[in-house]
């Protein structure tokens, strides 16, 4: 039996049925690219395990055969992160799709990797709980989002989705299984990763390069009874950022986001068009949730006061009145509409990429101006600077990202978009921002600028956990 056949047979034995394994190029092709401009690269096998034990056996096999393994849940990461750089086994985790527990007394849920945003939303809502829903596709994995520092509608109040992690079960690249956080001490206790050493960090933000997370505990906050969506505009990002910084000090917003004029168009204009004269360049919204009417009133009062006070100082920030329908979209997440990429790439034609970053808010303006220069002046085909900023909990920092649609069927235009995105990432990293879920080209740029000690540590950890370098090789650009 040749190697290919042997691996196929062993994988079939591990998952109990040939139905859950394929080495057919027809199946593998459907895992070879995503919505970004990343060139297609096929895995050699696709396997769909159902249990952590099956994951363990697959990883042991991969080590024995020295073939790469790429964890995959829905492949919507906007970074080519599930495109196998070196072929190998694509481990599709969608059959591990159980919500194992929703503990209302302690307020946590335990989920498997294949649980989708839509599935989780449905179950949590029934019980009056919520999660930091991203504006990503409803079919995407909650777990993959959380372990990769995903951002959602509660990042102003509770921080990144990775802050919600209370524990995890992980299969190490060499096949050993372990628990992190409180369940490491007692299996049914999923309240917090602390006060233990944060070993969950070894498997968080690592793009599937350090192991396969097979269970995840998440804190689930309740859905408050009252909500107000405050909307506002400013003539420029300087004024908008000043407002966001000032208002975020109160920690009243679950979500505090602003978008440039081009992103507020649905869909994003492709290619670039001029903003009409007089239209404010930035518009924004904040979701103010409250448990009592009084609490809500207070939040609204402060929101209005901050706008008024800044206005007196000459800031162009203004409260606006937008139709209820468009306000709804701010809380109705996960959303089929935004998740379907309708807003983002409908006009562009199928392709979407962006440098999504965590950047200190006092650098937003500088970076945005450089991005505008790249997108509207330097690019061969001018593109819309469709930019979003969101303030997170904690320091005055947050998301700064420029959504870049492109047509999939016109290689020159695709290359133009790819050039813009890469250039945008470079100026951003130079300014101190850091791209999240970085595709390989961003990772290279990050590593070029990174502290050598940090690079050494990441290499040492990778060598320790994954001596044969089988886990999603090539991502993070270090090994």
């Amino acid at each position: 039996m040749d190697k290919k056949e042997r691996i196929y047979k062993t994988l079939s034995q591990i998952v109990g049925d040939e139905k859950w394994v394929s080495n057919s190029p027809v199946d593998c092709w459907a895992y070879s690219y995503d919505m970004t401009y990343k060139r297609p690269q096929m895995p050699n096998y696709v396997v769909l395990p159902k249990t952590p034990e099956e994951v363990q056996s697959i990883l042991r096999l991969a080590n024995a055969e020295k073939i790469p393994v790429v964890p995959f849940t829905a492949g919507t990461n906007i970074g080519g992160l599930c495109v196998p750089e070196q072929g190998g086994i694509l481990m599709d985790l969608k059959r591990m799709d159980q919500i194992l527990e929703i503990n209302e007394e302690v307020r946590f849920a335990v989920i498997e990797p294949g649980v989708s945003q839509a599935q989780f939303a449905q179950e949590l809502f029934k019980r009056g709980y919520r999660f930091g829903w991203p504006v990503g596709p409803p079919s995407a994995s909650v777990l993959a989002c959380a372990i990769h520092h995903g951002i959602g509608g509660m990042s102003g109040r509770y921080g990144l989705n990775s802050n919600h992690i209370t524990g995890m079960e992980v299969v190490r690249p060499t096949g050993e299984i372990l628990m992190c956080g409180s369940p490491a001490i007692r299996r049914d206790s999923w309240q917090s990763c602390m006060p233990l050493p944060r070993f969950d960090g070894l498997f968080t933000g690592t793009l599937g390069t350090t192991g396969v997370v097979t269970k995840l505990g998440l804190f689930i906050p309740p859905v408050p009874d009252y909500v107000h969506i405050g909307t506002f505009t400013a003539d420029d990002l300087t004024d908008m950022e000043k407002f966001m910084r000032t208002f975020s000090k109160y920690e009243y917003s679950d979500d505090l986001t602003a978008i440039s004029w081009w992103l507020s168009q649905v869909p994003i204009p492709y290619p670039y068009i001029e903003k009409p004269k007089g239209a404010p360049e930035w518009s924004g919204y904040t979701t103010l949730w409250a448990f009592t009417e009084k609490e809500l009133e207070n939040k609204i009062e402060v929101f209005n006061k901050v706008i008024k006070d800044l206005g007196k100082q000459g800031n162009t920030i203004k409260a606006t009145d937008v139709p209820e329908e468009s306000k709804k979209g701010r809380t109705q997440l996960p959303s089929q509409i935004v998740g379907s990429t309708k807003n983002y790439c409908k006009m562009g034609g199928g392709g979407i990429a962006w440098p999504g970053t965590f950047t200190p808010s006092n650098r937003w303006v500088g970076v945005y101006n450089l991005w505008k220069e790249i997108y509207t002046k330097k690019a061969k085909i001018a593109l819309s600077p469709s930019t979003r900023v969101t303030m997170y909990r904690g320091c005055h920092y947050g998301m700064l990202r420029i959504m870049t649609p492109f047509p999939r069927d016109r290689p020159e235009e695709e290359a133009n978009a790819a050039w813009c995105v890469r250039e945008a990432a470079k100026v951003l990293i130079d300014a101190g921002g850091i791209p999240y879920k970085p595709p390989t080209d961003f990772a290279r740029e990050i590593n070029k600028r990174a502290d050598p000690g940090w690079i050494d540590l990441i290499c040492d950890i990778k060598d320790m956990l994954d001596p044969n370098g089988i886990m999603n090789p090539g991502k993070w650009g270090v090994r």
Partner: protein
Amino acid sequence: MPNNFKDLKWYSQFFRKCSKCGTCKSAYSYGPPPTNATICPQGEYFKLDSYYGSRSKSFHGHAILENKVDLTDPAIQEDMQKVIFSCTVCGGCQSQCLLDYKPWICDYIEEMRHHLVNRGIGPTKAEKIYQEKVIKDHNPYGETHSSRFNWLKDVKDLKTDGNMVYFAGCTASYRRTEIAKSTASVLSKLGEDWGVMGENEYCCGSPLLRAGLREEPEKLAQHNVDYINDHGFKTVVTACAGCYKVLSKEYEKWWGLKLKAKVMHTSEYLEEKMKKGELKLNNVPATVTYHDPCHMGRHMNHYEVDMEGKKQWKGSFVQIDKPGLYETPRNVLKAIPGIQFKEMYRNRDNSFCCGAGGGIKSSFPDVALETAKTRVKEAEGVEGVQKIVTPCPFCVTNLGDGAKALGSKMEVVDLIQLVDQALKK
């Protein structure tokens, strides 16, 4: 005859716009409350992303057109045939997609089949067998053409002329004759001046079209259209969702063949009667749910597309400007006194296919049966429901098979049978 079919390259302008977002893999709506359900029978059965939703089909389109896989290799041919021909072409994925690819999804899947058939990579063995039967005997069941109207032996005062012609279709004629008889009974009870085509009714062509054939169904279409037009019928009614789609939409869409008669599904005909106050129905005590046949529901959605870019941009999907037949059959069902109607979780655009369509019942019977079982279980989960009502003989057959395989007490009946039961003599 010239036709309006487009080739795969033409469709590539739309499937290339698929962003690979995966929204077509399940049916989700924010609500509130948020609802989430499976939508793709093929994906649910095979689980690999190469089978899930219209997303997978756009991957395969690239693979085929750009030679990303070696389609001269027999093993790859087999795999490609499996991924393309095991889809029920139910359009569940189409209902979820919001990009410009949306309006074209089902037509495109069938064109992929056609493309493969032209290269000898299809049809499936099972399809080949039934296709030969359709060509020879004008039905896919291997029955003789002359026995097509055996069910009519019991029907009194039968005519082959009149204002209205009842197009029975193959499934009702050969396999679900109780549905054909109920239809005849309802038309007679309502005093309609109706007739049948008798020996002149040929298969509508749906089983061939769904499998990617082009010339053979055209012959059937031409025959049926000529006969109906030549005989001066004013209305064609059919109780079959598949025939309804083909007669009312596809003869003209693909071959420009215009029926002079108005095509109506029996549920439309009954709703019209109801509106005129001409439908007097007796009590039929039962708690029922309704299953939307794909061919009557979402396949009949009409999509506004801006081909010239006058409103939006070239080739953009604007909106669904006319929905399929969702409310009409429900209105008829709800009008029957004694009927307690309860909706299944997945309904209308988000309905879960019965599993029989797209040639699956013969080519991939396991997929068809599992899908039917899933749907029957869903109905079982609705409190008190005793019957699944659906206006399509093919759905009745497959859901019935599903109920049987489950050992379920759930009854599956055609809407027209319930109406027949309820109609005063």
